Structure formats: structure tokens, C-alpha cells
């Protein structure tokens, strides 16, 4: 009666999903993607990087960070990686994240969207 022999591939979304459909990205997500563009980082490093890139004006909390990470993993924007050369034993225990092709595409799409908005605002004399 009940199919006993089907296998199915879990619930990660298909990675080829159109990045456009994720727009607009939440601010935290965009910051995290930007922070991960250069290199793989663990959570605390992401916070530091975001803070440095924005001259300390954006301070993500731990809660926001990990809720975003959980969702971004689910959406396939980032993935977890094993660091190639852990600097010390504490780093070894940490989870490192890397931006995916979809994540890059989504960040670029978001940047384009923001640029268009900026052009619009300038043309109207708002900026």
C-alpha cells in the first residue's frame, strides 16, 4: 500500500534557483554575503568584518547572525566548509562559511538593485 522503496533528496532547495527571486535581500544577509566575498569566515569573524567594513555603524548581534546563517544555508546562498589550515585549536571547533555561486549572484543582483535605486534618488535630487 505504502511505497516503501522511494528515496528522495532532502529538502535543500534546488541550487539553480533564480537569484532574482530572493530580492530584496534582508540587510543582514547582504552584509554577510559581502563579508564572505573575500574569504571563508566563521561567525565571529563575520561580525568583525561587517563592523570593520561599515566603520562600526553596523553591529550584527549573535542572534541575528545565526538566524540569517541558518536561513542562508537553507536557501543555498552559503555553505559550511572545513577550514584548510586552522590557526589554533579554538578555530578548529568553529564552523566556517563560504559564499556559493548562488550567493554571489544574489549579492550582485542586490547591488544592482540598490544602484538603480541610488540613480533614481540622485535624479530626483534626493542624494
Amino acid at each position: 500500500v505504502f511505497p516503501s522503496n522511494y528515496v528522495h533528496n532532502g529538502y535543500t532547495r534546488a541550487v539553480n534557483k533564480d537569484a532574482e527571486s530572493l530580492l530584496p535581500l534582508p540587510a543582514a544577509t547582504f552584509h554577510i554575503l559581502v563579508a564572505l566575498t573575500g574569504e571563508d569566515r566563521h561567525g565571529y569573524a563575520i561580525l568583525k568584518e561587517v563592523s570593520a567594513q561599515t566603520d562600526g555603524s553596523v553591529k550584527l548581534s549573535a542572534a541575528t547572525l545565526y538566524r540569517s546563517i541558518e536561513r542562508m544555508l537553507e536557501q543555498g546562498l552559503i555553505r559550511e566548509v572545513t577550514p584548510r589550515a586552522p590557526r589554533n585549536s579554538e578555530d578548529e571547533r568553529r564552523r566556517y562559511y563560504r559564499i556559493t555561486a548562488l550567493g554571489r549572484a544574489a549579492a550582485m543582483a542586490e547591488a544592482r538593485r540598490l544602484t538603480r535605486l541610488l540613480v533614481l534618488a540622485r535624479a530626483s535630487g534626493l542624494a
Partner: protein
Amino acid sequence: MRVYRWLLHLYPAAFRADYADEMVAIVRMRLGEVSRPARIVVWIAVIVEVIVNAPSVHWDMLKQDLRYTFRSLLRSRGFAATVILVIALGVGANTAAFSVADFVLLRPLAFPDPDSLVRICEGPRTGGGWGCNNQLSPANYRDLKAMSRSFAALGAFASDAVNLVGGGEPRRIAVTPVTPEVMPLLGVSPLLGRVFVPGAGDANAAVISYGLWQSQFAGNAAILGNTINLNGLPYTVIGVMPAQFSFPIRDVQLWTLLTFREQDLANRNNSYIEAVGRLQPGVTFEQARAELVTLADQLAREYPDTNEDTGVSFFRMRDNMSPRFRLMLLSLVGASVSLLLLTCANLANLLLARAAARKREMAVRAALGAAKHRLARQLATEHVVLALVGGAVGVVLAMLVVPLFSTLVPPTLPIAARPELDWRVLALAGMFTCLTALGLGLWPTLRDAGFSALREGARAGGGQKQRIRAVLVTVEVTISVLLLITSGLLIRAVWRVQSVPPGFVAEHAITLRTALSRPEYASPLRRTEYFRRVLGEVRRLPGVQAAGFTSGLPVVVTGLVTGVEIAGQDARSQRNNAVSHRWITPQYFQAMGIQLRRGRDVEDRDTRDAAWVAVVSQSFVDRYWPGEEPIGKTLRHRGQLRTVVGVVGDVRVRGLERTSEPQLYLPAEQIPDGFPANFDPKDLVVRHSGQDEALVAAVRKIVRSVDPNQPISDVRTLQDILAGETATRSAQLQVLAVLATVAVLLAAIGIYGLLAYTVSQRAQEIGVRLALGAKPATVGRMIFGDGMRLALLGIVPGVLAAYAAGRAMNALLFGIAPSDPPTFVVAVGVTLLITFLGSLIPALRAVRVSPMSVLRAE
């Protein structure tokens, strides 16, 4: 930091497992970055953040799980539909049955402190019976009230019906005359105006019900002080009761003042009232009963002539219902609890099967890195969604079914006729199914799938789980046998009741009531004139074969019991000598189809000037003159000597299920002067061969032409009246039959599911057996034998339980033995047949297993 870790429990377990350590590390570093006083600020920020953030993480996950659930259930639509249906049936049936039971048996009446409200009537000294056995006489009431110490207040009421003229159409309405104590002791204040006050001259005052105020007076707020006309007398409306007030039963629309004159108190046999009281605080029901019994003994000693056999029947207002209603409801509740158990067993079975089927899926997902917590949460979501959808469908079912239960509400209680859906019961049933779904769906998955079963390959399903499922199927069979047999017994009982000859012919006869009000029709000549004119014109209508009036239709009016004296026979203890008597016009027997066995009918010549006569029933003859010629014998009724001129067949005056007193029929014209109006002939019976509606319209026109102010009420056919006799039983039976059918179907599905699953799991084994030369027939028999074994294992306890249940509801069986062989044989046969069908398909499938394809798959 420990506080922070503890706070992190607000997050889903899977999330916590992944990120808790890192979050703790980050918070620790952040605290390290700031100066000591600033740490407080960081702490507050961190706590607020967790509290706000955790629910959104839950929500993220729920959305994800719901998406997945939706996809997964869509893939296995059959499974989802079955589970939803099973849950809906369980929740629906239980909510409906418990709602009605709670409404009738448990819910407090709509009076303040309803538990201390009691009623007193007369009853046998030996006790026994239910409700009001015999009404009280005003003299006995007066003495009980004066002598008792158990009551904070005690009042009396009678029952009456009056013709209300004014407002809309003339109407016949039920009235309860009450003493001034009654309304205050019930504790409900009027919505408008006031209730009766002693000494306020309320003899011609009326308090009306909310319903009557709305229907007859359009809710007019200026109704107070208006005059209405009751039985031709003017009454002043002094109050309107609130909508939820009803006393003593829901049909009563109007209350007048009950007072006693000297002559009312003269005779202790003159019993026409009942008492209602409120217990003194601190006095228990049993203490009050004990006191009343003592007082009744005292009265019996003081007035042996009248009170020798008179005791009290004393009961809580709540309990004024036939034990049959209680038993019917309890058996319904029992049936629906059985169905709930069966539902759970079936649900467990379905979910176990599915868990086994998904073992491999879970194993693969676990191997791909899904956290155990996450998978569990996912499964839980799936089951809760199923339970909620099933529950919602169940609620809709219950809402549809509950109004149909109105015939199960006894008419003797002051509660609404229509039970409402009970939300507390609904919540309980919903919770129960949710827990079953969750517990049974999740537990086996967590326990034995272990999410690491990849190595087991396609083969799954251990022996132990199969055993659990087999036990569950056996339980299902047991319960369905139980329900089948009990509903079978009740069906037989209904048939037996329906086959009781009522003593009259119900087909092709309509009845309606025109009760003549008293000052207008006080003169017997005026009444005779009315009957002659109405009957004369009705009999001339085309298709009418006979028409006659009686003071009360059998089954409808069960009282009108009187005593007779027979020359040469002991006249003492009149109540044990009771006969049921009716004043009738000519042609009444023909109209009712009551058989005339000897002598003659009442005729037009039986006037007040002619000899006074009587017609008696066969059982009357058997009681007083066994073996003798009854025609020409004399009897004395209320002082009048009468000659018996005819004998008719017996009628079930008290209904099909009760024994009736012998019957005495007297000519309408020979009513002695000063007789109360409720003995007047008022129910018209017309036997005809045409359309009921056309005839009713024609009769209405005739009545209106004879007396335009005469209300017409209770229009129905004799068949309706008989059907009403079994309506409650039929309603209960229909519900039970549906429950039993559902139970048998579920059991069949259970057996089929289990065997089909076994066959699919054992396909390899069967293939190997076949390849090694086993005969397909042997394999088929093996599977088939499994099914029948389960059925037999379930049938035996089912039969025993059904016998016990049958004995418990013996009172409902109307003489059918709880071990009634035909019922048992048919029920067991049906169960065997259904399980046979359930095992047939899997057995055939086993026979058709192709050894080659199975072995190749390996």
C-alpha cells in the same frame, strides 16, 4: 554565561545544537570588549535580542517544515486522506456524542445554585419509579410545607393549557399556574416588570415568556399593564421572563397565579399539583428525603383513608428524566468512546506502517547530514498538520450532527430542545487525537528507525512491530464486533416496539385539537352544539369516513386516570383500581379504527336525558367481570351509575412501551355539571381517504365558521403520533448504526492494510518459496489464514464485551435477550465477511508474486 545558555533553550533544538556554542563564544567576546559597568547594557541587549529572535527562528523552521509536509503529503495522498478521515470520524463522533450527553446529563440548569433545586410529588410508599409519579393534592402539599424543615422555600405549580386570544391568531398555549413562592425560589428575575407577590391581588395577572413576548406581541416594550384574553377572561401582563428562563419545561409560555380555595384543600385524593423547593443551605438531598419520608408516614397514620399508600417521590430538578434517556445517552457515549479507541488503534496502525515505509528515506536523510532533532521536528509537523486538518473536518461533522440529536433531549427538563456543540469537549477530543498522532507517529520513528538503518537495505519491518500492528488490528475487530452487536440488539428492540399493535389504525387519519375554553363553553348544551355542528360538517366533506372527538388521544394524553366502583367489589384503594377514561362523541371508535367487539358505540341518543351509559375495553371486562357477559352490567363513576352498552378492543393509552390501565369511554353529552375543562372532548380524529393537507384546510375552515375565536392546535396524523413513540430510539439507533458501520470499515481497512503490507514486505520470501516449488494456493492460504486468525482473535472478546454491554442496557432492549442469537450470528457473520474481503486482495497479490522479478530485484 549559564543564564545565556539557559535562554538559548528558547530556540529550536536543532538550531541550538548547531549554533549554541558559537553564540556563547561571541557573547563572551563581546562582554570582554567593554568595560565592567557597560556590561549591563550589553547583557540587556543580548537578552532582548534572544527573546525577539528565537520565535522568528521557530517561524522560519515551521514555514520550511510546512512546505515540506505539504509536498510529502501530496505525494502520498491516499495515506493523508485516510488519516484525515479517520481522525475526523473519531473527533466528530465523540464531540457530538459528548456534547449531547453533557448537555442533558451534566450541565447545570440555568438557575442560580441549581443543585439545591428539588421537586416533590406523591409516589408509592415503597419508593421506586422516576420523576413525578403522582401529582400532589393541595392538602398534602400544605401539610408537607408546614411540617418540613429542610427547605429554604417551597412552592407549588400545576399545569394547564389556555386559549390565548389577542395579538395574532388565537393560540393554544401551555400555562403553568404557580404559587408566589415559585419564581423567587428559582432565583431568576424578570426581564421586564415583576413576578407574583402575595397579597398584591394578582389573581388575574400573567407573566409571559420571552418567546411569547416576541412572537405574539412583537417584543413590544409597552406590554406591561396590557390586557390579554385567556380562556375568555381578561388577564393583565405584569412581567416578561428572560429568554433563557424555562419552568417547569421548555414549552411553557405563560405563568399565572395558583391559589387554593377551601374546597381544593378538602380532598386528599384531589391531586393535581407538584411542588418545587430549594434546599436549606447545609441540608443534603438525602437528609431532605429522609425528612419527607417521615412526614409521609405521619400523614399516612393521620389520614389512612386517603394516604395509606401515599409516599413521596422526591428528586433533583436536574434528574427529571426517564432512565431510558440516560441509558440511551450513556450507551451512545460508550459507543463513541469505543470508536475513539478504534480510531486511535487505526491511526497507530497507519502511522506505524508509514514509519516503516519511510525508514529508508529517514536513513538516507540522516546519512546526508540531517540532524536527528530536525527530522523529528519535521515528522511532528507532518503529524500535527494531519491531526489539525482531521480535527477541523471532525468539527464540521460534529456541527452537522449535533442538531440531529435533539430527539435525545428529554422534554421533561427545563433546557433548550437543541443541544449545542460543546467547545470543551471538542478541545478534549482534538487534543486526544493530536497526542495519538504525535505519540504514535513520532515514537516508532525515533525509537527503531534510529535514522541509521541504511544498511538494512530495502528490507524493513521487524517482527515486534508486526506484532504490535496485529494486536491493534485485533482490537479494531473486537470493537467493531461490540458495536455491531449492540446496535443489532437495539435494532431488534425497535422492530419489536414498532410491531406492538397500538390498538388503533394509524393510517389515513388526521387529528387536531380544539380545546373549548370555559366560561364561554361552561354550558354542556353549548359544547354539544359545537360538537354537533363541527362533526356534522366534517362528516359531509368528500372522502371522510368517520369523525369524532375525545378528551385525549392515546399515546399523547396518557393520564386522565380515574377510579370506578363496581357493585359487589371492594372499592377501597381506588388508585390500584385505576382505569383510564375518556369522554367521546359518536364515531370516535370508527375514526380511530378501534375495534368494537360487543354491543354498540356511543350514539347521538346518549343525551343527558337518556339512560347513562358507558363503553369499556376488553381488559376492563377481564378485570371486573372475567368470564361474564359485560353488556348490561353497571358501574359507578363519580357517583353516577352507568350501564355498560359496548366493549371495544384495548388501546395502548400509555404508549407502545408501557402497560396501560383498562379503558372506560363515556358519552360527551353525559359529563356531570361542574367537571373541570380538561375532561372535555377536545381532540378531533378524522378518518378519510383523501389528501391530509386539503382535509386539514377544510376542517380549519369549518371550525372557524362555527367559532372564529377557537384556536386550532396540534395538527398531525395518527401515524406521526406513533412514529414519535419510536423517534428517540430511532435517532439513537441511527447514530449507533453509523458508528458500527464506520467501525467495521475501519477494522477491514486495518486488516487489509496490515496484510497488504506484510505481503509487500515478504514478497522476497514468497518469491523464494514459489521458486523452490511452493504451490501458489498454499502461499495464498498462508496470507489468508493470517487475516482470519486476526479476525477470530478479535471476535471472541468482542462477543463477550457485547454480551456485557447488552446486559447493561437491558432496559432499552424491550424484552430482547442480551444474548439474542440471531443478532450475534449476523454480527459475527458480517465481521467475518468483511475481514474475509479485507484479506482476499492481499492473498491474491501473494499468489501472483512473480519469483523472477523479486529475485532479480535482489
